[in-house]
């Protein structure tokens, strides 16, 4: 994976809570067997509505999606962060996230950043009032910065290290091969295993 150190750019404000993965990418687009090409299907049904905020010309090309609480609740589909990435976003900021979505985002190289409700509100208002406003998310310093503000965010230290260094998680786990084999030799023998 490519290292992710810093994301900077304009914001797109999605002032809605509980945005579920069915909205982020509806089921009919989960039939593809590729890992890329999901951008046109992001928020597919909402984008059919002309007044949907992400359709506005001033938010085209934004790098950061700013949304309400519990963003990405629902299913385990990694197609959700794939669609967000393929549509050009590099980060999502929200007060909270669905667990699986957040994990999937990091694997996709999308920064899912939690900030307190009041700070997210500030960013949504800022993006709505001044769509040209630019922010920078600095993963190393764990800061979201803009003109006149610096917000600190917390992130799992292991996730941070993987992102900063572009580490291959499978490779990291494979370093424990001896411990895995050792564990396997001690598993209880009645546990189900299927001979094919």
């Amino acid at each position, binding site marked *: 994976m490519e290292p992710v150190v810093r994301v900077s750019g304009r914001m797109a404000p999605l002032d*809605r809570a509980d945005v579920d993965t*069915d909205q982020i990418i*509806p089921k009919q687009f989960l039939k593809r067997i590729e890992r890329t090409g999901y951008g046109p299907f992001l928020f597919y049904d909402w984008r059919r509505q002309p007044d949907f905020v992400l359709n506005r010309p001033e938010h085209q090309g934004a790098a950061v999606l700013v949304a309400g609480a519990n963003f990405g609740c629902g299913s385990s589909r990694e197609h959700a962060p794939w669609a967000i990435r393929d549509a050009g976003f590099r980060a999502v900021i929200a007060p*909270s996230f669905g667990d699986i979505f957040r*994990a999937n985002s990091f694997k*996709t190289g999308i920064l899912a950043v939690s900030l307190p409700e009041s700070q997210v509100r500030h960013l949504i208002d800022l993006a709505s009032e001044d769509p040209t406003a630019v922010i920078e998310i600095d993963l190393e310093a764990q800061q979201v910065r803009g003109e006149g503000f610096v917000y600190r965010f917390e992130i799992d230290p292991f996730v941070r290290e993987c992102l900063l260094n572009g580490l291959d998680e499978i490779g990291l786990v494979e370093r424990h091969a001896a411990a895995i084999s050792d564990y396997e030799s001690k598993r209880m023998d009645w546990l189900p295993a299927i001979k094919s």
Partner: protein
Amino acid sequence: MPPMPRTLAQKLWDSHVVETGDAGNEPDLLYVDLHLVHEVTSPQAFEGLRMTGRRVRRPDLTVATMDHNVPTRGGARAADELSRKQMEVLAENCEREGIPLHQIGSRRQGIVHIIGPELGLTQPGMVIVCGDSHTSTHGAFGALAFGIGTSEVELVLATQCLPQRRLGDLAVDVDGELPIGVTAKDIALGLIGRVGTSGGVGHLVEYRGSTVRALSMEGRMTLCNMSIEWGAKAGMVAPDDTTFKYVERRPHAPRGSAWEAALDYWRSLPTDVDATFDREIELDATRLSPFVTWGTNPGQVVPITGRVPSPASDTDERAMRYMDLRPGTAMADIAIDRVFIGSCTNARIEDLRAAARIIHGRHVHPKVRALVVPGSTTVKRAAEDEGLDLVFKAAGFEWRSAGCSMCLGMNPDILAPGERCASTSNRNFEGRQGAGGRTHLVSPPMAAAAAITGHLVDVRELF
């Protein structure tokens, strides 16, 4: 010094740590006993393995089925080219890696979370993962079971392990006898209505109390299945005689002396008396009623005797517009077009029996189109052996083959825009059952009652 008292979740966790994470950085590395695979979230994972020259480490601990895309009528051929391709790719991947596959049209095919328990693959004490958020279903057996994304599917295929951070322990204590007409689904909906759709985020949940002990395995699976709908990482129930009786003599259950050894171990799993939880939620089962959702997330829910509430947020207002409902409307006055009885939440044999009891001798309302989709081919056969298919068909229900079907509408079973459906599935998200479709989540008896009367209705009026 006596050992530290531990919760069920802590015991499951501790017994699967391959390598303990170092203090600040790497999480614990957990071993996975069973990896369930289906056609939608796995193709990119297998592709990733191929591109890096890796193989599946333990095909013998991996089981695949076709469920999300499968047609529920007209034989085994998928309706569209992409669905067909996705199923072909799964078959090729399983063939190449030696992974057992329950193909469309085979005897044991069905929804991944229904066939695992049926086959006896789901047992107490295990760690089970699947690229599907409703993997929490398997927690009903006293297993640690949770959904993962496609990158994690690839990781588990390659290493049979998953790095995981420890989470908080949350107890949900449900006590008292469930009133007539109130089911495990109503416990779940009532709970989500109270704590909200993110009330469980960051926690491993244990469902406890006399009500949970009295539930059948089917009921416990329904309850654990919905854990993700309030954000919990996993939901589980301590194993007991009900669990053991369900598992015993299933195809992959231990036998003979292994069964006795397994029982001894499983009896050591329940939470120790002095163990403590980070959070506790108490629910009085005697005060529950049949629930029905009015909005576009499972937390937007009221008793069937209630009314559409006044909106308390923008989310509520948007949901009300989408659902075309007005505050103050009695839930029982809402007419429906479709009924769906199915999904990994409510398509086991007990669910079909509960619905059939309401339907027996009655007929589906002329304005309603109603569908029963058994959760697995095994459930379908069992129901047909009992004559339940005849009850449904005589009443005017369509009797289909096993799959996820209209729970998420990846196959041709979808709602038309504006259609309103009483559904036994787990998500009432916008467009979930078809773009523009409107979903009201209910229990199987409530869905059956709605099919008969043509509107949402308190099933207790039909007893």
